């Protein structure tokens, strides 16, 4: 169906181009302009690796700062679409809230008005094609450079050059058009005309996926007197509604948070459009009164349209900025998170295509999803120890937990793996590999330890699975000695999981650093003590050879669980923030330093 539509469009356009050369010029202008916009976006993406991410995180901590950020970024990039994509990507990764994302979108609406002023004020008044050609030459020169920054500048320059060239073609096309056909004969008056042209404006923008391209087209047509001023205003309203398609398409691959933002963008622009459609004649009157204050001549309809576009978007921001939190509540009501039933297949919560747009969002997503997997694995490891995850997170004394859970808990760990681990594990590894391939070497270094942590989590699960068989057998054994040893394994691992939980929950860096080192010390102490105890039990014939072999293996499995999960806690803590990663890493004691402490401390009892 899609291919058929494309075929029909190609045939229709080809026929039109043969019939009318001026239309070809206009269409080629639009195509060159869109190509220029794509290049401009591409150019800015080269800078996104570090600068934009840091900027975004620092200055979007309040709604008004988010609006300011959206305004500045859209003004610089001349693309509200990219601002929307950035917002969706950062929201999906949980780096900013939906309210802050809406702020960026609102700011983007203001930023997009600068484009209209530039085109109406400069683009249509001077011969910008003269500037386009050197821009293209220098742009291409930079694109061939190895430095990423220079490449970015090259793409941005070439993008601007193509955009200027596109505008010149459109202008030329409309000017020539004027000599043959007068399009104003199709103008429609009154509210029917406003509605009709608003729909045309929306459709036009949906097809081109760029409100900038629509605005250029409207402004050039208006400057060539091919459309009436009133119809141009209606087309602008439509373009503002149609522009939400970029966010909607961007959110298709995103999670609920991204969808909330796209819905907000659609609601904000559509409601503003619907309200202002009713007031077009009043606004025309208002512009006639206020235009002289900005030095706009009475007959300069292109600048008057740019002024209308600014009023429209300012009205939109003034109307919705105070309502953002209510809007978020409404969206939360409609997009409620799905609760995964205990026996249902669990899937990824954060990984989505949009998270791969920027390195920071990819890393944040990877961290969050790894934590999700960790929670599932801890759930099953706890059950493998015949306790529950809630026991671990409770404040109950470990001795009391063991007394309460003195019966073996028979749980199918393989089935659990299939339901709640396998899918997420596979997707995390795939995501990490794709991200590693997509971003620069420096950024890739951040993905490797997180990917390894994920592998470590599954290793811990496997060790718990191997241990479960004997655990079930010996927790119900008549031999008190072996039962005590397995209870000791349970006690050690519960303590270990609790400490990791504390590391995840604490907001104090020094506590986390201390606990991470303590985890290692406890694991080493346990290993030494367990071996001593085992020697003692064998020497005194308290357990059989079979029991001894099982205990020896399971002590090793318990050590694997403890050390793998310690590494996971270490990675997730160190990489949780990009700012003090090295400082945090430096103060966590390594294995050799912990060994010094273990040797210095006195031997302890095993019970």
């Amino acid at each position, binding site marked *: 169906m899609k291919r058929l539509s494309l075929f029909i469009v190609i045939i229709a356009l080809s026929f039109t181009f043969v019939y009318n050369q001026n239309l070809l010029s206009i269409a080629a202008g639009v195509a060159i302009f869109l190509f220029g916009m794509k290049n401009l976006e591409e150019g800015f993406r080269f800078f996104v690796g570090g600068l934009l991410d840091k900027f975004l995180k620092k200055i979007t901590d309040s709604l008004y700062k988010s609006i300011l950020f959206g305004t500045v970024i859209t003004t610089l990039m001349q693309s509200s679409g990219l601002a929307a994509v950035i917002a969706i990507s950062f929201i999906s990764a949980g780096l900013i809230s939906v309210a802050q994302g809406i702020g960026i979108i609102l700011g983007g609406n203001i930023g997009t008005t600068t484009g209209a002023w530039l085109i109406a004020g400069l683009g249509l008044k001077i011969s910008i094609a003269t500037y386009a050609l050197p821009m293209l030459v220098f742009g291409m020169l930079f694109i061939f450079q190895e430095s990423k920054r220079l490449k970015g500048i090259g793409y941005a320059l070439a993008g601007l050059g193509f955009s200027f060239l596109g505008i010149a073609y459109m202008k030329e096309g409309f000017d020539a058009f004027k000599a043959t056909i007068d399009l104003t004969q199709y103008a429609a008056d009154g509210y029917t005309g406003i509605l009709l042209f608003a729909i045309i404006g929306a459709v036009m923008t949906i097809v081109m996926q760029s409100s900038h391209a629509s605005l250029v087209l409207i402004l050039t047509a208006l400057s060539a007197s091919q459309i009436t001023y009133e119809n141009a205003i209606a087309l602008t309203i439509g373009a503002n509604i149609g522009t939400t398609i970029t966010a909607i398409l961007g959110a298709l691959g995103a999670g609920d948070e991204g969808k909330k933002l796209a819905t907000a963008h659609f609601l904000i622009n559509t409601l503003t459009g619907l309200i202002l459609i009713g007031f077009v004649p009043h606004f025309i009157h208002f512009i006639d009164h206020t235009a002289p204050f900005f030095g706009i001549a009475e007959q300069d309809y292109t600048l008057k349209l740019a002024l209308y576009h600014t009023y429209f978007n300012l009205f939109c921001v003034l109307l919705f900025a105070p309502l953002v939190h209510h809007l978020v509540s409404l969206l939360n009501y409609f997009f409620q998170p799905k609760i995964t039933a205990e026996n249902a297949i669990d899937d990824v919560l954060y990984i989505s295509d949009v998270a791969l747009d920027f390195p920071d969002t990819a890393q944040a997503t990877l961290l969050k999803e790894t934590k999700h997997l960790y929670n599932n694995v801890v759930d099953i490891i706890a059950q493998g120890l015949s306790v529950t995850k809630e026991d671990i997170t409770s404040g109950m004394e470990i001795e009391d937990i063991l007394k309460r859970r003195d019966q073996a808990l028979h749980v199918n760990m393989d089935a659990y793996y299939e339901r709640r681990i396998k899918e997420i594990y596979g997707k995390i590894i795939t995501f990490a590999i794709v991200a590693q391939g997509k971003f620069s070497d420096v950024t890739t270094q951040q993905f490797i330890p997180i990917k390894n942590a994920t592998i470590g989590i599954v290793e811990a699960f496997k060790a718990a699975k191997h241990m479960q068989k004997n655990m079930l057998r010996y927790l119900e054994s008549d031999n008190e000695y072996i039962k005590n040893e397995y209870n000791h394994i349970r006690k050690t691992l519960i303590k270990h999981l609790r400490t990791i939980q504390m590391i995840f929950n604490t907001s*104090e860096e*020094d506590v986390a650093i*201390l606990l991470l080192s303590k985890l290692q*010390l406890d694991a080493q102490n346990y290993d030494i003590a367990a071996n001593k105890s085992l020697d003692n039990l064998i020497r005194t014939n308290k357990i059989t050879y079979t029991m001894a072999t099982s205990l020896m293996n399971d002590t090793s499995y318990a050590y694997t669980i403890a050390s793998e999960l310690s590494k996971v806690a270490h990675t997730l803590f160190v990489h949780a923030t990009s700012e003090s990663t090295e400082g*945090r890493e430096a*103060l966590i004691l390594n294995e050799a330093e912990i060994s010094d*402490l273990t040797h210095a401390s006195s031997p302890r009892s095993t019970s």
Partner: protein
Amino acid sequence: MSGLKFIQKMQELFGLSPESAESTKKKAVKELVKKLKLRHILLKQELKNETDLIKREALHDSIQIIKKQVKKGKEIVDD
């Protein structure tokens, strides 16, 4: 204000000053050592009041770790 100074001022304002990785690390370590020293005092106080043998042993371990971490941190900062 010269152009360069203005750029530096803006970078500082947005926390984007191009510090070297080494100085950023030292700054973070210094900050953490300060926090760890305070934690050390708190744990020592706790140890004085603790009567439970196992808890005392755990506190003792923590104090030993902090001592080593502070020493390590000082070495990094002084380096």
